[in-house]
């Protein structure tokens, strides 16, 4: 039997928001290249847990975390607090519940992370944008309107655009905060197919409220209740 390869591990992870304890002593291991679902009642801190994995909580006033989060980027486990935050977030992508295209064209939205990295090669940028859009099954729908404002796309298209934007840097981990909850069933299924395809190269942590979706696509499960995270 093949041994499980662990990608992320947390040790004694606590999280506080304006002094209130949100997560309590979280100790969890997340397997590499599988879809791990995270379920639990609303308001328990599922999104917060995702933000502890890419240090996004540091951008929120009143938030504080303690404990350790280690991720294996290929050279053994590294404490994420010792990794430069920009590098960490390029390796640990995140997609939110509500699509959040930036106020710019479709092309520039997807190319935005490359711009942040200082990429200047136009041909390379164009190729990577095309690859990312193809991976999210969006290229065929937008290839003739790349210069249009991304906010003119439908909700499902916007969410796939956000995934393309997160994927263009080829992250090793993808954090998804209820990515299908604002979409219709058809668009939701497209995203699910995409996730099943992505797990070949990516470790996916998926927050979802839909048990049928979890059963369909998740390999492992975590449940968050009363500030505690347990294996499902």
């Amino acid at each position, binding site marked *: 039997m093949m041994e499980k390869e662990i990608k992320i591990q947390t040790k004694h992870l606590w999280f506080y928001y304006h002094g209130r304890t949100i997560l309590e002593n979280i100790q969890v291991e997340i397997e590499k290249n599988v879809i791990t679902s995270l379920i639990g009642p609303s308001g328990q801190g599922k999104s917060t847990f995702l933000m502890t994995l890419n240090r996004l909580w540091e951008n929120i006033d009143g938030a504080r975390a303690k404990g350790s989060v280690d991720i294996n980027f290929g050279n053994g486990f590294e404490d994420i607090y010792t990794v430069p935050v920009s590098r960490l977030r390029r390796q640990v992508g995140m997609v939110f519940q509500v699509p959040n295209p930036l106020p710019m064209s479709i092309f520039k939205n997807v190319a935005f*992370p490359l711009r942040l990295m200082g990429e200047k090669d136009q041909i390379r940028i164009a190729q990577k944008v095309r690859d990312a859009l193809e991976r999210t099954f969006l290229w065929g729908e937008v290839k003739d309107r790349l210069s249009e404002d991304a906010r003119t796309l439908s909700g499902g298209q916007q969410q796939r655009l956000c995934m393309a934007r997160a994927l263009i840097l080829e992250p090793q981990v993808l954090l998804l905060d209820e990515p299908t909850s604002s979409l219709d069933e058809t668009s939701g299924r497209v995203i699910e197919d995409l996730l099943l395809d992505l797990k070949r190269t990516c470790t996916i942590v998926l927050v979802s409220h839909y048990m049928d979706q979890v059963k369909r696509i998740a390999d492992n499960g975590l449940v968050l209740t009363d500030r505690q995270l347990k294996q499902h």
Partner: protein
Amino acid sequence: MTNAFWDKLLALFSWACALLLVGAVSVIIGFLVVKGYQTIHLELIFSTTRPLDALLFKQQVFDGLFPAMVGTLFLVVLSMGFALPVGLASGIFLAEYAPPRVKWIFSLLFDVLAGIPSIVVGLFGFSITIFLHHSFSDRIFPCLLISSLSLSFLVLPYIIRTTQISLESLPLQVRLTAPCLGATKLENIFLVLLPSSLSGIVSGIVLAIGRCAEDTAVIMLTGAVATAGVPRSIFSSFEALPFYVYYMASEYADPLELTKGYGAALILLILCAGLFVVAYAIKTRLTLKTPYRF
């Protein structure tokens, strides 16, 4: 009485208030048009000077509105030139960097500053001029520069607070989008947050432009005079449309002069409308174009 009745009553009241406001604006504009449209012709602006000579600043215009129009335009551009960078930077600081206590104190101070009557700001500018005149050089007098600085001080709170509020009202998800992709705080502010809140910021700028163009109390104490001609430099005194309107309304010798005042008021409105259109055009352009190129 039922909730539906109160709902309808409130809706009716809201409609009545909105219509009253639109009606009041229409009456004011209509009144100015009726009173002033007869005087709107080239002679009111350029008097007996050839328009091309006046526009190329080859010849001074006496007894026409051209110097006041140019003075107003210079005043607005200079004031906004001083106020915009400081106002935007302060607004960004308050929204993105200031600790809560500092933010609270500064916000309160800027709100108080916004409530200071313009005549007090004018007096302050005038006092500073006298101080500089006595302390540094007897060649320092009220002039375009001092008027512009005083006006920029007057409109600064509008720009600061609208920038701050526009940035703060962005949803958390928009704020987190760029950091999620590895952007630094500065990249997030300039590439995402400012373009996303441009609409609110431009509204503040438009308000500030209007205030700069119409304020009389500040400029009458800090540099505006009735017959200065087109200002030769920022250290010259100058004419301005609101001061001309005030002067004509209070000192007119015959009904024709008063009619000229109405004409000047109409031109001031058109000038302000033009500046607003430019501000909105810039906003539209900046919103459609992304803030960077590949």
